[in-house]
């Protein structure tokens, strides 16, 4: 166990619920704290009777939703302004194509809900970035809050209940959750790349299907002078 995690657990045990709320809030804003492990440990201590599991659940959901909202607000206030500036400035125009910001906003509006929901419990490391991105992309706040609360409820309940059920083995469960989360991330990347590869392959197939027509047209134009030999006035000598 890292010294950092040990210090965090020590603080949570000594100062109780307020320390837990603050650490979850900080992690939700985007600081990389091992909060899943802390929740697993808190669940284990709740089994001992040191914490109340219902109060723990309420505290972790409220803290993480508050932190996520702060991340969203930062993105909405400053991120969107920075993006608009990049879109307009000559510096940004080198990297961002015209209308690409509007397109990305439309895309995020369509698919962002899943990203928000899944990043709360499945790939928790991406949570802070997704919050900022949601604000920056001006994702509707109502939907953000809905997906956030749903995801965070699962994100709090899973480690707390696992810690509560398995007590002393919570650190081993933490390893399982960590590797499972990485596996899920890898799987999502593989699926994304496969879809991209399929799209490229379809595009290549389409262009191959349309290319013979162009070739035929070109070849007819090119072949014509060879069929009709040039007249002597053109300056070319007729072949023997």
């Amino acid at each position, binding site marked *: *166990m890292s*010294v950092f*995690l*040990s210090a965090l*657990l*020590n603080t949570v*045990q*000594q100062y109780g619920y307020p320390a837990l709320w603050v650490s979850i809030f900080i992690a939700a804003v985007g600081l990389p704290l091992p909060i899943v492990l802390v929740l697993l*440990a808190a669940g*284990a*201590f709740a089994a*001992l*009777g*040191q914490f109340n599991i219902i109060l723990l659940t309420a505290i972790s959901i409220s803290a993480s939703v508050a932190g996520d909202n702060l991340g969203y607000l930062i993105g909405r206030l400053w991120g969107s302004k920075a993006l608009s500036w990049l879109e307009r400035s000559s510096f940004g125009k080198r990297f961002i194509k015209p209308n690409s910001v509007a397109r990305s906003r439309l895309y995020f509006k369509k698919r962002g809900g899943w990203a928000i929901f899944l990043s709360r419990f499945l790939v928790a490391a991406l949570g802070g970035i997704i919050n900022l991105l949601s604000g920056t992309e001006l994702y509707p706040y109502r939907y953000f809050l809905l997906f956030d609360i749903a995801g965070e409820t699962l994100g709090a309940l899973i480690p707390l209940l696992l810690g509560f059920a*398995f*007590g*002393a*083995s919570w*650190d*081993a*469960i933490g*390893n*399982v959750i*960590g*590797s*499972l989360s*990485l*596996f899920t991330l*890898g*799987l999502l*990347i*593989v699926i994304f*790349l*496969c879809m*991209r*590869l399929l799209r*490229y*392959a379809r*595009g*290549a197939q389409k*262009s191959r299907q349309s290319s013979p027509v162009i070739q035929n047209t070109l070849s007819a134009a090119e072949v014509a002078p060879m069929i009709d030999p040039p007249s002597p006035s053109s300056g070319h000598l007729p072949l023997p």
Partner: protein
Amino acid sequence: MNARLKLMGTGILLCLALGLTVFCAVQTVKDIQSFEQNHKLASSGDVSTIRSWMTVPFISHFYHVPEGYLLESLHITNELSVRHVPLQALAGHIKRPLNSLIHDIQHAILNYRKQYPTPTANSRHAKEPSPGTVERKKP
């Protein structure tokens, strides 16, 4: 050419991602096996499962040994000051190496089990002795 480059780049990335995914899958299976082993040991009350994050009350509850007995064997008199302190912090508090502290606790638990062999001592799910019983058993 551009499309071919894109295709090649995506293919290489896909291979890397596949490798990472397979590695993580193997790691997940290993971690699950390790968890099962650890949980089995912990459930049977094996003292090797004592960890640095555990507090004295946690150990007392989990291994069915009176808290007072543990504190006494560690020569700790001020019970309240160490109640919510994990072993790692406790080792720093009493200026002792962590491994030695864990070793002493393991010995104390084993000694207690030798002195008071009960069917509940090695079972995690068994009923914990009542406070009165603990007080009477306390040497």
